[in-house]
């Protein structure tokens, strides 16, 4: 592949059929042009260097550009200049890198002028753009994108036909369009390039378009003909009156207003024997009184005149405020505006997709956190306030395992089932010791489990301390899956999504395909009837509590992987979990899924509308839920009829 590429390069960039083996010999062929380069003559040298495809050519060009090349007058060969000391200079051979010391006066410097250096710079880019290594070519593109420049259009255009990698070629074409859009020679070329940018969502394309559309706000007595007006600004609507008047003042089109502070200072300066312009100072404690005193002073000519509101209105009405494009050609700005709108639409779509992915991963977390709560609530009518602490327990289990098993992948494999066991055992213990004795007293259960919750939380604090403990994800979960510049999702979140899907499947299997599931469903829908049919409620309660708490433990590990493990982490999720259960509807896996989905989407949506403020987002979400309950008191997926109870 690379060889083919080189052959191609040779054919296309070989105006003079020189087949030279080393750099020095090519330089010697054009010794005069190298020694005293001119903007036109230097092209021949560059073409030959390019044609030879020598690996050290770019370095030479860079050195040439940096005025690091010297010529040994003794033999006429070119060298890179090294250190000088005691009248001696080190010469570095361009091909071999060998160093020789010669007297300083034996060499003469090659001093390309500014124009030549620009040509050299362009050539360097061309070299790098045609470099056999794709990474170098990508790097070159990145550096062009970072500092776009009209000179780069030419080399970029030339490198496109030979680009073997499709992705890089597309990137080159895109970059070329960006460059032409901004620096193109003719209007047609620029418009065409601008329209070519419509298909991307990349930030540099958008930046280029908005650069073209940059405006400057100006003011004039009448709208001038020779500017490309973006829009007219109406004072009081598009621009505040104060700002508009300030601009008039700045342009010297109106007298400055007297600010409150200036007014006060002027009055203070004019105090004589406790009066200002004959008015006693004590009475100057309202704005109106001060203004009157100032007007008196102004009439006496002691201070600049006071500009009244009417005068401000008149001045504003006499002038037109507008925003003008820096770009004078309306055809180009129109095209850019249209294209930017199209791009913004695509960006919007991409952002929506990104938001959806975010919401999906948040929903997975809520689902994992809430499903255990939902099961126990459905089966036993019990709200377990300590559920959050089971999440915490799972996370700390993961942390402890990592202290003993240094391999992150292995420790995760151990931690997940262990967290399930630890939290599940804690759940069963709690059910046996406490909840069992509080049957049919849901509110007391709620409070008793709250007691357990604060005890567990404090216990965790006493054992693990108050600072956050890390739970490190294995290396293969680092990074993110990038769809394009705007849409990406981290592998951890994908893993959590997979985990949630796994447990959804597992639960559905247990509930719908096993004897235990049948019994659980029976108890959920009609506890009295289930008991009378010989289903042992003790066993069911224990099993559901164990499973529900165990899943909370798993959720803890999952949450710990991307957030930190603290004794309060459970408390942070418990209210959201409640909301998920309440919104979704009790005793139904699909309900919890729907609740988690709704809350996840909602939270991300509200956050995206008000990105600066996640607190407000949560506030609005809770308000939404309170209102939602008005319309669906039993949640999205409600059990109907008598089974729902009253």
């Amino acid at each position, binding site marked *: 592949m690379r060889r083919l590429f080189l052959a191609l390069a040779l054919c296309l960039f070989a105006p003079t059929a020189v087949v030279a083996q080393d750099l020095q010999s090519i330089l010697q062929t054009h010794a005069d042009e190298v020694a005293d380069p001119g903007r036109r003559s230097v092209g021949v040298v560059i073409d030959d260097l390019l044609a030879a495809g020598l690996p050290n050519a770019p370095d030479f060009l860079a050195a040439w550009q940096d005025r690091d090349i010297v010529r040994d007058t003794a033999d006429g060969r070119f060298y890179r200049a090294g250190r000088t000391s005691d009248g001696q200079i080190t010469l570095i051979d361009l091909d071999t890198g060998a160093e020789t010391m010669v007297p300083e006066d034996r060499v003469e410097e090659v001093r390309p002028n500014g124009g030549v250096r620009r040509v050299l710079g362009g050539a360097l880019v061309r070299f790098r753009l045609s470099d056999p290594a794709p990474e170098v070519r990508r790097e070159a593109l990145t550096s062009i994108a970072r500092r776009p420049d009209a000179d780069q259009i030419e080399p970029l255009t030339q490198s496109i036909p030979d680009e073997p990698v499709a992705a890089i070629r597309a990137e080159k074409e895109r970059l070329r369009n960006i460059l032409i859009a901004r620096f193109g020679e003719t209007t047609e070329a620029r418009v065409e390039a601008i329209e070519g940018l419509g298909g991307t969502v990349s930030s540099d394309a958008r930046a280029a378009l908005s650069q073209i559309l940059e405006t400057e706000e100006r003011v004039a007595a009448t709208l001038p003909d020779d500017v490309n007006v973006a829009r007219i600004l109406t004072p009081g609507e598009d621009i505040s009156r104060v700002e508009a008047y300030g601009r008039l003042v700045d342009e010297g089109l109106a007298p400055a207003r007297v600010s409150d502070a200036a007014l*006060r200072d002027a*009055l*203070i300066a004019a*105090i004589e024997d406790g009066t200002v312009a004959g008015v006693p*100072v*004590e009475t*100057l*404690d*309202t*704005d109106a009184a*001060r203004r009157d005193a100032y007007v008196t002073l102004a009439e006496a000519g002691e201070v600049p005149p006071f500009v009244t509101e009417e005068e401000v209105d008149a001045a504003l009405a006499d002038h037109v405020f507008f925003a003008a494009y820096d770009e004078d050609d309306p055809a180009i700005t129109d095209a850019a505006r249209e294209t930017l709108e199209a791009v913004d639409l695509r960006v919007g779509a991409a952002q929506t997709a990104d938001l959806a992915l975010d919401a999906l991963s948040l929903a997975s977390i809520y689902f994992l956190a809430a499903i255990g709560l939902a099961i126990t*609530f459905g089966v036993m*009518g019990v*709200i377990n306030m300590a559920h959050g602490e089971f999440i915490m327990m799972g996370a700390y289990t993961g942390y402890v395992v990592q202290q003993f098993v240094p391999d992150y992948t292995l420790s995760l494999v151990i931690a997940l089932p262990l967290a399930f066991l630890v939290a599940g055992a804690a759940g069963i213990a709690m059910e046996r010791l*406490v909840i069992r*004795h*509080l049957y*049919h*007293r*849901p*509110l*007391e259960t*709620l*409070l*008793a489990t*709250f*007691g*357990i919750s*604060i*005890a*567990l939380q*404090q*216990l965790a*604090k*006493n054992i693990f301390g108050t600072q956050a403990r890390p739970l490190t994800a294995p290396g293969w979960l680092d990074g993110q899956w990038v769809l394009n510049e705007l849409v990406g999702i981290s592998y951890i979140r994908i893993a959590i999504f997979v985990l949630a899907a796994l447990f959804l499947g597992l639960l559905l299997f247990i509930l719908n395909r096993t004897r235990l599931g049948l019994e659980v469903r029976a108890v959920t829908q*009609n*506890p*009295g*009837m289930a*008991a009378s049919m010989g289903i042992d409620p003790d066993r069911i309660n224990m099993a559901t509590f164990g499973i529900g708490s165990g899943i909370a433990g798993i959720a803890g590990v999952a949450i710990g992987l991307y957030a930190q493990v603290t004794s309060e982490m459970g*408390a942070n999720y418990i*209210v959201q979990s*409640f*909301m998920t259960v*309440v919104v979704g509807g009790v005793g139904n896996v699909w309900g919890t899924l729907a609740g988690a989905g709704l809350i996840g989407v909602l939270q991300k949506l509200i956050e995206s509308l008000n990105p600066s*403020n996640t*607190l*407000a987002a*949560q*506030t609005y979400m*809770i*308000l939404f839920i*309170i209102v939602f*309950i*008005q319309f669906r*008191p039993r949640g999205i997926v409600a059990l109907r009829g*008598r*089974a729902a*109870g*009253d």
Partner: protein
Amino acid sequence: MAVSESLPLRPTPRPATAPSTWVFLGALAVFTLVVTVMASQGMISTAFVKTLGKTLCLMLAAVAMDVVWGYTGILSLGHMAFFGLGGYMIGMWLMYARTENIVAPALAQQPLPPTQDEIRDAIGSQIFGVVGASDFPLVWMFSHSLVAQLALVVLVPGLLALVFGWLAFRSRVTGVYLSILTQAMTLALALYLFQNDSGLRGNNGLSGLQNIPGYEQVPQATISLWFLWASALALALGYLLFAWVVSGKMGSVLRAVRDDEARVRFLGYHVEGFKLFAFTLTAVVTGIAGALYYPQAGIINPAEIAPIASIYLAVWVAIGGRGRLYGAAIGAALVSLLSSWFTGGGAPDINLGVYTVQWTDWWLVLLGLSFVCVTLFAPKGIGGLVDLVQARRVPDRQGDYGPDKGAKRQEEGRE
């Protein structure tokens, strides 16, 4: 576990106000007198007087909580939101008026007398500088007026309770659903107040509330006594009000709503109206309690409104014994004082040889576990001791009736 089978089953008849009311009020009067005397003799510190004054406010909130939970059966996990709102409302005036007292004389020193706007702007930048603002938000519209803010102490918690309660009860959200919803309400409020642009100084909250504008010269020792008296008076009046409300037919209907609200509906009572009445009235009283509490605490911030605070309120009532007003008051006093004793380092550490139990670390574990034990073994709470003393146990044939309608779940399933 037989004990847990029986819940408060108060014998009747009940006179307009039970004798326990007069006992409670007498004890409160004696307590106030003793504290006043001891404080003026310098036997107890000003800080402790404030702690006692604050405890009286918490007791008032707990009594209100008992009416809404113990009597009406609504386990509100959001009543401390009303408490905090009451505190915020009075705090706004305290802060405004005090800042004005500082700022206005300073401005008066300038060559020109200040305008009203200048004074207000100066107060605004003093108060809101900490959140990077200087303009007064709309909610501070009445902050210059003590009368208006006092009215808001009643109106804001009352209106919030009215609107929230109307929405919640109307859609017949009951039981744990309702509890979670009230918790969501207080969480939403707390999160909202945590924002810097909420207009109430974000997580800085309102501070310096212990300084009463116009009484800067009065020493805190005296002011702490004033507030102790005010809190005791508020508690006495609140207690009387609630004792009156839960006596007679009103109490009867409220307890009926608690035990079987469907049945109450079939008697023709508008259950939602009664719930709303209890919820709103208790919210207002809780707001007043908060308005008295925070000037003694000196500072209020959104953390005070966090859901955990309301849960503690329920814990106090449960430990004291719900369904009787004095039980709630005793529970609040006992647990909150114990809590400040333990967490304040007052309790001696226990050296177990291998491990030293420091109560600052272990108090919450103890509280949590003892709370579980109370729920399991003594559902009547401390108030249950009174029954033991009176030894007037009532034969209970049915057992399971209480705030939560136990066996109903099973009964509903049948034809």
